[in-house]
């Protein structure tokens, strides 16, 4: 009797845990076509940091993302191609537009997307000690602001 109940309890717990992770991931990352997500973006380097907003939209071909600072100035435009598990950079702001920064960004953004898909908002690049933290912005609040005008 007890082993049977324990097994049941374990399987229900696993299912519950799986559902929680899945729901969390859905909220964090625009996994399905047409979904979008807005994040408060924060990238901290050893001697500096960058903060701003990131918007991601899952369209027919890729998950497209734009990162811009609070004043609206664009920093990075990228696409994540799920089929190839690859990040393509479309635009990198002037000061950061160097081949070695682009390479780093491509790799780090791909890792960050993986983390977001798993329901984790942070990615830490151990080699260069860079922390990427993308926290979702309350969509309801943003939508209200968007339609108020």
């Amino acid at each position, binding site marked *: 009797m007890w082993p049977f109940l324990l097994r049941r309890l374990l399987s229900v717990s696993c299912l519950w845990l799986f559902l929680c992770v899945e729901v969390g991931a859905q909220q964090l990352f625009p996994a399905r076509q047409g979904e*979008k997500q807005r994040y408060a973006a924060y990238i901290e380097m050893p001697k500096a940091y960058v903060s701003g*907003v990131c*918007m991601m939209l899952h369209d027919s071909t890729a998950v497209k993302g734009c990162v811009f600072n*609070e004043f*609206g100035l*664009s920093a990075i435009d990228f696409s994540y191609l799920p089929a190839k598990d690859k990040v393509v950079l479309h635009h990198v702001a002037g000061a950061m537009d160097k081949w070695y920064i682009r390479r780093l960004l491509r790799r780090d953004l791909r890792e960050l997307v993986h983390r977001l898909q798993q329901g984790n908002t942070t990615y830490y690049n151990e080699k260069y000690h860079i922390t990427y933290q993308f926290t979702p912005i*309350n969509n309801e609040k943003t939508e209200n602001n*968007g339609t108020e*005008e």
Partner: protein
Amino acid sequence: MWKVILYALLQCILLTGGQVLLKFALLRMPPFAWSRAFWGSLLVNWHFAACGLLFGAASLLWMYMMKVFPFSTVYPLVSLSYVFGMLAAMLFFHEEVSAVKWTGVLLIMLGCTLTAQGQSAQQMRQQIQQAAAAMKSMQCDFVQTKHLKMLNEQMVSKGKMYYQQSDKLRWEYVTPYTYTFVLNNTKVLLKNSRRDDVIDVNRNRFFKEIARVMMNSVVGNCLSDDKDFKADLAVAGNEWVATLHPVRKEMRQMFQQVRLHFDKVQKTVTRVELIEKKGDKTIIELKNVRTNVAIPAETFAVR
């Protein structure tokens, strides 16, 4: 600018038309006599009536132009009627107009265009600078809309802005994220939900530039700032629009152009458009603007 020229052209056509009809009316008038027949012929002379209508319409349009546009812009444009006068002389009265006369007319037209353009831009610039100098403080709400071309989406954020002459600015986002930028003399405070940072702009050239451009844009001082921008001014309905073209390389990397919209009456900025090379656009609308109000010193505290 083109609106005033269009009105001026129409006004000159009406005026010249009136003059032509007056000439016709006078040509057809019988020799003067104190008789009922003479005065009766004047009453039935349609050229006189039409000439009066055209003069009336020209006067009404002239009054409207004088009310809406600067006097120094409108007044020289009236001389365009000389051009129409010459054309009418050739067309209706078959008079000969020599090359010297046409040269004179062309010079009048050139002079009119230069006067209208030069003076109006100069005058607008002057008035904006005067208003900026008179503005001791300002506070308002703002709505910032970032248009993302790649996503075909937009992001709206709102906040409050405080300015105090001559080097204090607080730019505060309250929704959907919180972020505060405070400039007080040479110090800048950057505050987000995670941390506060104080930067000395004299030690950071980039921040010095950003702070200067922000401050100058808010009050409209960047029109006289030849170091950063080349500015064009134009009239658009009830507002003046200054289009700023960045001069420096660092600025050009950030913006293709910046458009400042000024309220014609208050001479203050009502809307800022930051247009990027890649097609993205950020529009900041200033609302509930209050000038020369007391702002607590704490608002600009940097620590």
